[in-house]
């Protein structure tokens, strides 16, 4: 495959994911509104917001690291997405999954977070590091059940290669990890709640206490970059979960496969949306203790389950 074709494929893949991710955000806002008994913003509101923030004609920058923070963040989102094969068997959507396996994806997630944390840190606003300190602290704990669940997968499928994991789940719906290793899925889904930073784990952004937390100083195009990443990165995470636990998206027709992906990721996302709509927010230490209690035990149980039974 020539570089140009690959580049073209990657661009297509990224654009699809970004649009999907942002639209998903819009849909979710609509759903929230309906739950509240409102009309809610139009589904395309996230796109308008991004255009508008990009269209701001003045911006402020606190320094080079601040400038690069959103870049890091988006690069993290892009990279995470690009290391995941989105659609099983598709060349266009295979991205750069040749570069590494599941571990690479798991660690590349941190790339954006770290860069953003540094950029926000240079902003000089105390709320940024407060939010980051909370976010990182929470991250250390929700990563534990997820990591345990991934280890269980690695034992189960004897590989860390995402494509292979997806391949192993093909054939029947009963081959999905959801059914072959439900404990691992439970652990991972709980940690997904933390990853998505929906309530009850939304203390990082806590608009009331520390207005919006880390990105408080972010403005104009910086903010737009972050918003773009929110769509893309969200989609990447969901695609990862779909691949690992819900059989991935595979169909001979690429559009059907995309539809399958959209359907599956939507359902996965709805899970955290429902939980978020139903539960109030945890305090930081509560959420940390929570993740290290039941989800971790479930994760350990899933490992023991696949390793020894």
């Amino acid at each position, binding site marked *: 495959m020539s570089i140009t074709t690959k580049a073209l494929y990657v661009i297509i893949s990224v654009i699809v994911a970004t649009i999907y991710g942002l639209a998903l955000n819009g849909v979710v806002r609509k759903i929230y509104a309906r739950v509240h008994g409102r009309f809610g913003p139009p589904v395309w509101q996230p796109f308008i917001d991004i255009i508008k923030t*990009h269209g701001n*004609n*003045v*911006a*402020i*920058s*606190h*320094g080079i*690291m601040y*400038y*690069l923070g959103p*870049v890091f963040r*988006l*690069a993290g989102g*892009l*990279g995470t997405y690009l*290391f995941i094969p989105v659609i099983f068997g598709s060349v266009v959507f295979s991205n*750069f999954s*040749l*570069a*590494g*396996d599941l*571990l*690479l994806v798991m*660690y*590349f997630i941190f*790339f954006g977070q*770290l860069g953003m944390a*540094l950029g926000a*840190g*240079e902003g*000089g*606003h*105390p709320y*940024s*590091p407060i939010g*980051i*300190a909370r976010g*990182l*602290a929470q*991250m250390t*704990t929700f*990563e534990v059940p997820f*990591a*345990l669940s991934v*280890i*269980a997968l*690695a*034992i189960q499928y004897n590989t*860390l290669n995402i494509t292979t994991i997806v391949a192993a789940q093909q054939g029947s719906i009963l081959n999905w990890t959801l059914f072959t290793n439900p404990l691992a899925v439970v652990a991972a889904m709980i940690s997904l709640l933390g990853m998505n930073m929906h309530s009850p784990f939304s203390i990082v952004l806590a608009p009331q206490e520390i207005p919006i937390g880390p990105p408080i*100083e972010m403005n*104009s*195009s910086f903010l737009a970059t972050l918003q773009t990443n929110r769509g893309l990165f969200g989609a990447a995470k969901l695609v990862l979960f779909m691949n690992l636990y819900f059989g991935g998206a595979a169909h001979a027709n690429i559009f059907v496969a995309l539809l399958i992906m959209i359907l599956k990721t939507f359902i996965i996302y709805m899970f955290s949306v429902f939980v978020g709509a139903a539960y109030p927010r945890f*305090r*930081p*230490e*509560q959420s*940390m*203790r929570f993740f*290290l209690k039941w989800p971790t035990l479930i994760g350990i149980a899933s490992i023991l389950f696949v390793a020894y039974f």
Partner: protein
Amino acid sequence: MVNPIYILILSLVIGFLLTIIDKAGRKLSLFFLYGVLSFNVAVMFIWFYQFAFVGRASLMIHTAGFIAPISINLKLGLLEAFVLLLANLAGLMSAMFLFKKLKETHISGLILYLVLIMGVNGLVMTRDLFNMFVFIEILSISTYALISIDENKRSFSAGFKYMIAGGITSTFFLLGIIFIYYFTGNLNLDTVLGNSSMLAMKTGVFSIFLLIVSIFIELKPFPANGWALDVYQAVNSGITSVIAVVNSAAILFVFYKILPLLPDQYLMVFVGAGIVTFLFSNLIGIKQTDPKRLLGYSSIAQMGLVVAAISYTTKLNISQDLVFIMAGGIFINHFLAKAGLFWITGIIKRSEIKDWGILRNNTPLLLLFGVLLFALAGLPPFPGFWAKWEMAKIFVSNNLYVGLAAVLIGSLFEAFYLFRWFGYAIKNERKEESLKPVDFSQLFPVAVFVLITLLTSVWIMIRVYAFDLINFLPVAAVFGMYLLNFLKAKLKAVLAIIVVILYGYSIYPLETALQSLFGIIFVIGSGIMIITTMNRKGKISGFYGFLLMMILSMGNLIIAKSFLSFFLNWEFMTIAAYLLILRGKKGQVPALTFITFSLAGAYLMLAGFGFMPNVLSSNAIINTIGSIEIPLAAMILLLLGFLIKSASFGLHIWIPGAYAEAEDDVTPFFASIFSKTGIFGLLLVAISFIKHSSEFNPFYWLGWLGAISAIVGAFLATFQEDVKKLMAYSSMSQLGYIIASVSLLSHLGWISALYLTLNHFMFKAMIFVAIAGVIHRTGTRQMYKMGGLIKKMPISYITVLIGIIAVSGVPPLSGFGSKWLLYSSMLEKGWYLQAGVFFFASGVSFLYLYRMIHTIFLGQLKYEHQNVKEAPIYFLIPQVIFIMGIMAISMFPNLIIKPLNSIVGNYFASTIMIDGYNVTSSLGHWNGNMVMMVTMGVFIVPLVFLILFNGRTQKVKQFNIVFAAERPESPQTTHFAHNMFSHYYKALGGLTKPRIQNFWNSVSEWSNAIAGLFRQIYTGNGQTYLLHILLYIVVLYIFLGV
């Protein structure tokens, strides 16, 4: 050839004449005194030379014209000559030390002194039991009198106690003689020895017991030695050193002479008693704060050890060489060091070790003090070290494990109090007034003894163990740099770099695979790091010497050809590290903790090496270890020793203090290079283990230990305010990764371990150097006092940024490679839960890394740092070098993966496939180069996008923040830094309670309390002491079981 009998005669004659000579003036009598003493030394030197180098047979001197056993006969052999040479030398030197005192005191002092020396000479030479008694009495009486030379109440009372003890032992000795005469009809030692069958029955043994026990009591066994301690404390230092050294030597020789009388099966009692004395005296020693009493306990302990060594070697009938190294080593070590130290206490005249900071003002004296103290603590290259080495081997080969344990624990106690003393001398908070200039007459004896100590050490190293010159390099470096002290620091640094380069070049041919990797870290890494120290100004004496010592001994580790050479260099390294830590501003306590833990580790290793089979090989042990099966006990002991160096969980107490309090530009050495020696050791053991795997696998547990170290280290690091402590705990955590991956004992695991080692070496070095630069500029280690320094120190910031990305394992930098290898290898091996723990630990590492980089470089710049400049160029050079290193192996992972693959290929069959830049394991794949390319791509695209789409971008300053519609008051209140992870502490801080610290604290408290308890038996009451002696004899008799 002068007949040694003239020594006795001359001493007596001059002794009697002195009263008359003194009428002509004290000068003349002093002349005669020194004349006689010098004569003694000269005679003994000639004889010693004759015996040792010309090979003369030993000399029998018959008195009164008859042949023994009818007359008294004297014997002068190699041993006698050796002991007497030392004793007479000590006598002469002590007299010299006492020059002022002898000038003023009554003439009887001089006479007594002469008589005492005469007694010693006689005692050593005589072969007649009754004559022995006579000489003992001569010795004792002159000693009683000399004790009270200072004419104060305490010395009188001490003398009296000494007299009581002496009296009672003499009585027993006499009783013994009577019995022996009754049974054998003879008192000549040789004859009695020849007829020892006549003494084989119970009463015979009892009579010998009486004889020996009285001598033994004179050697002050625990606990029947209260009288001696008062003497040590109360008496003039010159006399004390004579009593502690010369008298003891003579009595010890008597003990040695009559010991063969006792049947072999009873000797163990004395071995036991000696070791008990050693252990408990040292235990009580840790309570002492009076240097003379402290030395007293040390003396008693050392004598106990010598007695044990002599008794044991006599029992085993081992080769004369070993006896000399083992018993003689301890003896000569004790003899020289103790005499010297007692003299120094006489010079300093401070009765609290806390007040010894005054010593700092006199560099030569401090140097002498240091050498003697290190010798006494049994560190290499001094004779005590070799003795302990041989002792460990012999004890282990004869299954005397309890004895070995007791000796090693005792040694640790001794080292602890000695180094505490040393610490007070080198460092304490107080300002000291300057020391009065020391008289040459007082300095000279000490210098002579130090010189002899050194010469003996060198002699042992060359003649007995036949070490290469390369093993001398660390010590040579210290002395070389001491001689070049007048040079400027920069010049010395350049010199040090040249030395390191030359050294690296010279050992390069000796290295293969694994060695080269560690060679890069130990030697090249050190060379780069020395550049950092070039920032120092002035002469900074005593720094580069120790630095070179550390570097060279680390280099020697990888090419060591025998266990002894390995251990020797290991100890050199420890000493150098100790001295470097001690240089720090508040280095006293951390250095003491460090040396205590290190020596504990060293003693464990010593015991471990005791279990090892002897290897004679022309290749480095790291290459030959595979063919040696390490016994399990040795393995565990060695692993424990190495784990202390690599700061594993439970043994990590020393690490924060040592890293934090060492000077800022030295800490990188510790964190990035020195800590790898422990890993090297682990690999050493592991290589042997994989070739001879046994049923019990300690490495499985080591893996867990590594995991716990990783997580606990990360937690502890998270809650530090002090940046260096944070990084220290981070090191502990990272070393936990390495320990665990070494313990995997698999191909991928070891690649991971070596990759981590190299990676940790680079990022820890660059972070610590950058931090050193920051501390240098801001003058504080507290992170919350900094902030916003990115604008002032951009290069340091970039270094730290790249460093933390490499630590945390975020792609695309090299850290991810290590994480990928680690998890892949763990999952491959089936260590699932451990892998989970490591995931958690690497998550927590984000916390402390972010905390470090944010609170120092981001956020609000403080007023006081408005004019801070970028770190000096010397700090930046190493940083840039390491950045390039990290970037190179990140971009082109094959640079490192391929060599590692081939290195580890020597031990395991390869389980990975390398295809271009793609590394495939059994579980997954990783293409470092592609990751880097993709990352750069996805980074550049948004950046260009942002630059294009941003409108007018105004660069603003630190206070232009939305502060809830207020304006920030001051940078201090706006910077979020202090107690950054309080919420995390609330949730999980319970895990960081200093349980381990508390454990070790209580260990030290308990030792102190027990020591205090035992110390109480010394009431200071003469009658009690008498009771002790009698009871002791009874107990010993019961143990003897005759």
